[in-house]
């Protein structure tokens, strides 16, 4: 939150409309999420000139209120109204809290031309029992009738709520930093606040001795003030802190916060008398304890940094001070700490202890050394001025911070090439000056030094191009396309297969689903048919998303249940997704679920899903992919599948998936599912080749066998195929019979066989000979009977 009235102290923006300025700031790269102002139209300061009781009420009053230009009659229920009182008047059209709009009205038949307000009605105070009973707000005697009461209250500041990108928090999420950003946008100069003060003869270093025993504190400065008088802060400090959401405590605490919001550098104040004369900064010891300012005991780890008095921790560096050295109303002497700590460590500690504060966030994002000393001096100045402090001479200093200057060399052409537009050299010079980036010219080269306050800028041409372009204006970019060689765009690898299969399954009537990769452990044990182990997340968000799935079946079954419970009758689904096993082995899988009527008009009997329809859909897919004659189905069993309606799918005799009906114990309805490894389908297939159909007539023969009920037809077909040889073109099942005419545990399957000689007409005798061979062969090899007509 940035208070624009505060910013005015460092840069002249009096000619700016603050709403328009917010747009300029946003365009230049820092998103002003909202412009907050307490201003309310049609509010005016009035003075009550006459109070009378309402004729028709025992608590309402009828007031005459002078608002300068005229006298208004207002009915008011507050008990504290009296003549001569200066009040806030909301006139017709004013919009108060909760979008309450003031209108002229009659209250119990008495005309009322507005409303006298309490602060909570304007959103300036919380509505509580207490504020409610205070009645309307009384303004001071110095309030001028007819003027804006919000301005009179000093609450008319405009605030910007910033959405600052991570890297830029530190150079503009404080008022001086923001002033620099405005200076660049408006091409103006920044004036830093006053920090000159007299020091007493006593020296700091005769009172304190500093040791740093960690590499996580590259910069540590300390200064001392004494004889402070603790009391309330001056109004402007209280108001400004309050406006950005910080509660005023006392002059000393407020000054430390105030300076942090000026310079972005958090400070810590120790009660010097409690601290002693030694400061040792070191890594915390594992298990070391400290009671922090909030009275809680904190257990530290060796990742934390602590400030100690030589022995015991007095502060969790950058995160929170210790109770043992807290500044209180009796404090006389303060040690001011201004330091930089390793950001990663602060972030880690703050998040582990759950102590994210304005200060720890700033430390955690990294600080510029440029302001470490300035902020400390500014604090001394303010403490001297507003707490009557005496400042001791000198600074305790530990300085191992890297002050290497970041320098970038570039030519204007390089920048223009990157942007794709032409910005002339003169304009580039202007932009750099606006940014307050010192530069030199050498021929057509620019040599730019990046100021340390811009921690976010790395010494690359890209970074300079961005700074120049954002000030020059991104709206000046043009629309071009990359000048590259012509080439064809393609789906690569598994994406290609996914697209092809997806389209096919959609055209076969299945709707695509997308489910979560993370499932519950319980789910992972359902519909399991492979011997795979799941990746278990070490630190899951919740139990229902704790393992990485190896199969899509449990997820797609959930989608079925979701739809079933919403009374959807026909459910046809598929999903193609990646799965991972414990060894992080990736396998893309195709999964489907089918239930209900596949094809119907609703008023005649349709085609309902059964095992063979699902098998047909799979064969359709596999044939389309070019795997004809390479796949087969084998009886199988798997968890949660119907033991008699479950098959494993084989490609080149290797299992690639499963299909079957869900076990009636799991689901009473007829629900079928399948899953195939897409990886297994990513193999070579034959190229397409034209094949002429035979010109010679085919010969057809039918035959039926009686066999045990549990014998797979495939077994018979294989024998027929083998004996039929090259002349046998096709085997079709055309009838299946079970019933009285044959044995109880038997079935009869009839096959239609087609023979063709391809390049000649077959002779009847030739065919008959093979046909009988087939019959005899099947009878013998499969131990079945021929079914006579």
């Amino acid at each position, binding site marked *: 939150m940035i208070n624009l009235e505060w910013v005015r102290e460092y840069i002249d923006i009096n000619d700016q409309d603050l709403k328009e300025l917010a747009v300029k700031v946003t365009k230049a790269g820092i998103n002003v999420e909202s412009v907050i102002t307490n201003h309310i139209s049609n509010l005016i300061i009035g003075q009550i000139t006459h109070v009378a009781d309402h004729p028709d009420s025992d608590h309402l009053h009828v007031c005459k209120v002078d608002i300068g230009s005229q006298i208004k009659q207002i009915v008011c229920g507050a008990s504290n109204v009296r003549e001569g009182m200066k009040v806030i008047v909301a006139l017709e059209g004013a919009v108060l809290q909760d979008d309450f709009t003031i209108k002229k009205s009659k209250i119990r038949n008495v005309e009322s031309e507005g409303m006298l307000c309490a602060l909570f009605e304007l959103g300036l105070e919380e509505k509580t029992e207490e504020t409610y009973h205070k009645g309307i707000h009384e303004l001071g005697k110095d309030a001028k009738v007819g003027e804006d009461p919000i301005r009179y209250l000093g609450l008319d500041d405009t605030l910007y709520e910033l959405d600052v990108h991570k890297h830029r928090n530190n150079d503009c999420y404080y008022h001086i930093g923001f002033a620099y950003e405005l200076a660049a946008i408006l091409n103006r100069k920044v004036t830093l606040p006053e920090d000159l003060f007299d020091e007493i003869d006593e020296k700091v270093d005769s009172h304190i001795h500093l040791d740093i025993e960690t590499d996580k504190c590259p910069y540590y400065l300390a200064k001392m003030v004494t004889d402070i008088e603790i009391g309330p802060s001056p109004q402007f400090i209280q108001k400004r802190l309050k406006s950005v959401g910080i509660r005023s405590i006392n002059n000393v605490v407020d000054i430390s916060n105030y300076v942090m919001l000026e310079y972005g550098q958090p400070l810590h104040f120790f009660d010097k008398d409690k601290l002693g004369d030694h400061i040792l900064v070191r890594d915390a010891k594992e298990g070391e304890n400290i009671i922090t300012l909030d009275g809680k005991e904190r257990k530290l780890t060796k990742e934390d940094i602590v400030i100690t008095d030589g022995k015991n921790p007095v502060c969790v560096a950058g995160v929170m001070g210790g109770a043992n050295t807290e500044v209180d109303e009796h404090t006389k002497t303060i040690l001011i700490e201004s330091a930089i700590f390793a950001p990663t460590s602060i972030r880690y500690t703050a998040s582990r202890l759950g102590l994210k504060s304005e200060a720890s966030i700033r430390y955690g994002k990294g600080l510029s050394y440029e302001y470490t000393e300035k902020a400390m001096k500014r604090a001394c100045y303010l403490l001297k001025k507003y707490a009557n402090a005496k400042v001791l001479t000198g600074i305790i200093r530990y300085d191992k911070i890297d002050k290497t200057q970041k320098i970038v060399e570039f030519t204007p052409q390089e920048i223009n*090439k990157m942007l794709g537009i032409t910005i002339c050299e003169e304009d580039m010079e202007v932009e750099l000056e606006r940014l307050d980036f010192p530069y030199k010219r050498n021929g057509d080269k620019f040599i730019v030094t990046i100021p340390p306050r811009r921690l976010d800028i790395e010494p690359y041409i890209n970074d300079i191009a961005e700074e120049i372009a954002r000030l020059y204006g991104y709206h000046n970019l043009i629309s071009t396309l990359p000048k*590259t060689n012509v080439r064809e765009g393609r789906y690569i690898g598994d994406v290609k297969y996914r697209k092809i299969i997806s389209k096919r399954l*959609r055209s076969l009537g299945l709707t695509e689903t997308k489910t979560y990769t993370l499932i519950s452990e319980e789910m992972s044990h359902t519909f399991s048919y492979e011997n795979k182990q799941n990746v278990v997340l070490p630190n899951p968000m919740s139990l229902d998303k704790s393992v990485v799935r190896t199969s899509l079946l449990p997820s797609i079954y959930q989608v079925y249940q979701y*739809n079933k419970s919403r009374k959807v009758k026909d459910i046809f689904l598929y999903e193609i997704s990646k799965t991972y096993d414990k060894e992080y082995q990736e396998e893309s899988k195709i999964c489907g679920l089918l239930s209900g009527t596949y094809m119907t008009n609703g008023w005649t009997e349709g085609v309902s899903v059964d095992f063979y329809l699902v098998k047909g859909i799979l064969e359709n897919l596999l044939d389309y992919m070019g795997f004809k004659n390479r796949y087969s189905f084998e009886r199988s069993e798997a968890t949660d599948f119907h033991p008699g309606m479950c098959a494993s799918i084989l490609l080149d005799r290797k299992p690639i998936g499963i299909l079957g009906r869900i076990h009636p114990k799991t689901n009473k309805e007829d629900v079928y599912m399948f899953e195939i490894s897409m990886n297994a389908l990513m193999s070579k297939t034959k190229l397409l080749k034209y094949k002429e159909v035979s010109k010679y007539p085919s010969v057809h023969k039918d035959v039926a066998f009686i066999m045990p009920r549990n014998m797979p037809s495939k077994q018979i077909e294989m024998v027929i195929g083998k004996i039929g040889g090259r002349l046998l073109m096709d085997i079709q099942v055309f009838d299946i019979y079970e019933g009285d005419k044959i044995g109880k545990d038997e079935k009869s399957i009839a096959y239609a066989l087609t023979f063709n000689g391809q390049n000649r007409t077959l002779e009847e005798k030739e065919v008959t000979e093979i046909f009988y061979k087939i019959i005899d062969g099947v009878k013998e090899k499969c131990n079945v009977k021929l079914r006579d007509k």
Partner: protein
Amino acid sequence: MKEKIEKLREEMNQKLENVETLQELNDIKIMYLGKKGPIVELMNYMKELSVDEKKVFGKLINDLKTEMKNRIESLCIQLEMETLNQKLEQEQVDITLPATKIRIGSPNILEKLIEEVEEVFLSMGYDVVDGPEIEEDKYNFEMLNIPKGHPARDAQDTFYIEGEEILLRSQTSPVQVRTMLKGGGKTPIRMICPGKTYRRDDDDATHSHQFMQIEGLVVDHDISLSDLKGTIDVIVKKLFGSSIETRFRPSYYQFTEPSVEVDISCFNCKQDGCNICKHTGWITIAGAGIVHPNVLKMSGYDPKQWSGFAFGFGAERMAMLKYDIKDLRVFYNTDLRESNTFDRREDFLND
């Protein structure tokens, strides 16, 4: 003889007049024109006549025969027509009854959007690529200029699987890194990589622990920020209409510099101000930028020779905007009553 013929003609005509069915007609045909019929009988009787008489009566009989044949034939056609018409009338269907539904599956709504985006980029010569969802830290962060301890990692809130080394990818950018490594610093790159990503967000109307990004990468010689703007223009106009404009705002990402945020002019209110654009006239839809020289370098492309741009859209956000969807969970629930309305193309409408 003559009278006999005339009588026969009369008799036949009378019978034919009363014929109603094909069967009856056939009976008459057999009765009179058949081998044992009266006409044959008359012809047999001719043998006994003189030559002159034969001439006269022969013609008369033949005429009668031809006449009857023709009459029967035309009657036959007529009766057949009548029968057929009757049959057709009986076969009439109620064409307003429901059709036999040919099932068509729908794409997942997100996939539909992604496929539209892919179509445009494929036509501009971009490959469509994907990579592993269980990723190594190296590809997900390290090589994207996000070293260990960087604050961007905190914000990403990653699902770690094994220490800080193995994780569920928090962005699709590792696919860009992998593609660059494959390119070996030598081949120009044009690719998009739509894919699943994972972050530790609680699922609600606008957040999801699993979501989809559509990222793209171009690496070539002389690639500029203006090229990025033109490319984004193309895709935005395709998806949201040809009158849509794009705006770049400065932004920040670790792997691009300069970085921009992409806004499009509000398609809903034409920039008059509405809830969709929060009364600003603009909607943020993507992050993008010029590939950071460190990223190029780490993936083997010399930043002095090569330059590139990268961009990333959130598929859910785009789909929510395009199809006016208010709750992100819609994409992952698959309510068939909703998703089955997405079984058609819509590009015919946009031209």
